[in-house]
């Protein structure tokens, strides 16, 4: 199964090779590891080597959340999506990573933006969060309005692929 940690590019390939009761053998990115699943008073722990860590998992619509002690990991199971990559865009739209208020829109439609360019500023929890372009792109359509409240996942800006002769100007 392919898993991508949220907010990161790297994809991990995880294979469960063998499972006998609670003894598990798996391969993570080519490296084999053995683990023992422990059930202690209804709580689950994974023992790797001589270290045993309490683990909890929940599965959401687009994410698997795993708590390892106080740390939470969020993974997106990867399904093939060739279109974006083919167009050279890491994302086709800029969505709100959290609910909040649109404070500022820093770009205009048809503008070409570079990787890392600030596009829009949201305010949530009294904090300003700036969303930036993840790759060079053209602002196709601005769907957000300054002052509007937006939900998590709302599409704020639509992007289209950058012009072909990118290095000109």
């Amino acid at each position, binding site marked *: 199964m392919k898993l991508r940690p949220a907010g990161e590019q790297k994809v991990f390939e995880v294979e469960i090779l063998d499972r006998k009761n609670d003894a598990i053998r798996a391969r993570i990115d080519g490296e084999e590891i053995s683990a023992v699943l422990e059930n202690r008073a209804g709580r689950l722990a994974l023992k790797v080597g001589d270290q045993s860590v309490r683990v909890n998992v929940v*599965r959401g619509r687009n994410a698997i959340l795993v708590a390892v002690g106080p740390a939470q990991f969020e993974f997106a199971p990867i399904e093939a999506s060739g279109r974006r990559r083919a167009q050279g865009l890491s994302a086709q739209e800029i969505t709100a990573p959290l609910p909040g208020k649109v404070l500022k829109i820093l770009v205009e439609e048809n503008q070409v933006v570079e990787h890392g360019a600030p596009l829009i500023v949201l305010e949530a*929890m009294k904090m300003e969060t700036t969303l930036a372009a993840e790759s060079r792109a053209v602002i196709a359509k601005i769907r957000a309005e300054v002052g509007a409240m937006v939900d*998590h996942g709302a599409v704020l800006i639509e992007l289209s692929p950058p012009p072909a002769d990118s290095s000109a100007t």
Partner: protein
Amino acid sequence: MLRSEFDREEDYVAATVAPRGLFLKYDCGVTANIRPRQSGMKKLLIANRGEIAVRIIRSARVMGLRTVAVYSDADVNAAHVAMADEAYPIGPPEPAQSYLNMLAILDAARIAGADAIHPGYGFLSERPEFAQAVAAAGFTFVGPPAEVMAALGDKLAARQIAVKADVPVVPGIDSSDLSTTRSFGARVGYPILAKAAAGGGGRGMRVVESAEQLESALEAAAREAQAAFGDGRVFLEKYLARPRHVEIQILGDNHGKVIALGERECSIQRRHQKIIEESPAPGLSEQVRARMVEAALRLAQAAGYRNAGTAEFLVDGNDFYFLEVNARLQVEHPITELRFDRDLVCDQIAIAEGARVSDPIVPHGAAIECRVNAEDAAHDFRPAVGPVAHLALPSGPGVRVDTHLAAGAEVSPYYDSLIAKVITWGQDRELARKRMVAALDEFSVLGPHTSAAFLRDVIASEPFARADLSTRFLPEFFPTWKLSDDKQKIALLAAALMGSTASAKMSGSDGREGARRETTPAARSPWVGLGHFEPWERR
């Protein structure tokens, strides 16, 4: 007590035989010299939410008060609402329309028949006009009087009081005029700090690194100040490179007595927000501590301070400079409580009722507090929101957790990101520190990201262990932070174990979530059988 103080005979009789009689001893260490009834409270409204509302309800209950919660539309299912004896809606989720809505809160107090209002921290707690309105409406305000708050809550006025009371202050100017600020910057040297006059809790502060940044930084600070406090005034201060932030807890009664309850070291800050606090301040000399306590008491006396407050200082070697007075209960008050065996909320209520403040005991041991925020520490501390699918909280000897969080609760985007305070106590700092590491290891949330794992790594770190503290601690020792690869490996394995059963279905499905969830064969996943498999949606 005189009969003439009462309109009716039965009120007088009820008052004199009331169980809460003269010289009441509260278990928080305050001997209350109260006239029974008329001045004693019966019902307290808490004009706040989150962990502090829960915290205040607990103490009020101990003192035999009935409690009234207020809540916004986003907090219908919040812990403080469930916990209070009564609860009243006060408006939409936006703070300006609910928790900052004085009229709605006063209406709730009237309808509930409350006789006192505790503002908590944040929201209306340091607004003199609120303290004024509460008193004018005939309720007791559990906090300093409006005029004291007005004088001290305004950072500029507070500076002037400090200077008059012979308390050292950081060089600064109270102007945001560009040419004046330019010459100030040139005189004291960059960086300088732009601060909101009405600010607090680290908001409305900006470091200006150079003269070129001055104009935009002043604008941004004024905009944030206007948005957060409704007051856009900004002033400037010399920025000390590697200071420590140390504060003194004070308690003043209505009879002119003010006491100090030691210090709190709050140097570990992120973007001027405290995240780890401890008491005592490690390595602070007895002499400096004593001078700071004296300065705080002088300041409080000069301002006619009443109720709980905190004088904040920057410490630079053996020098210290007054920063500001926080005219309210502080987030980090529990570490003082653990060392002084006091309940500061009880103290506040008793003082508001007219009790005399009792002398503090000699403090013992060391206490540490970690503020766990709903933030993704691995991704630039991005705010995290949404429902809590799973929650495990630490406990045990020397461990205290102040929180409003519960499984199924929702972390809302409208309010502060603080979700829990983990507080530990030990005979010495090292024991308190070890207890904190162990406590944070037990702290687990699934749903919104939290800063618990980050805090755990900071507390366990060598620089923290040797107390190499300054407000630059995090930029110096934790400029970046990520979850460890070992932990990630375990997490990947766990996710794959969970996913291995579902993945077959996923790859064959047409991608419609509803169909997928219903038909997911869950039987083989170890988490399913034990009830750890829960459908979870990030909203």
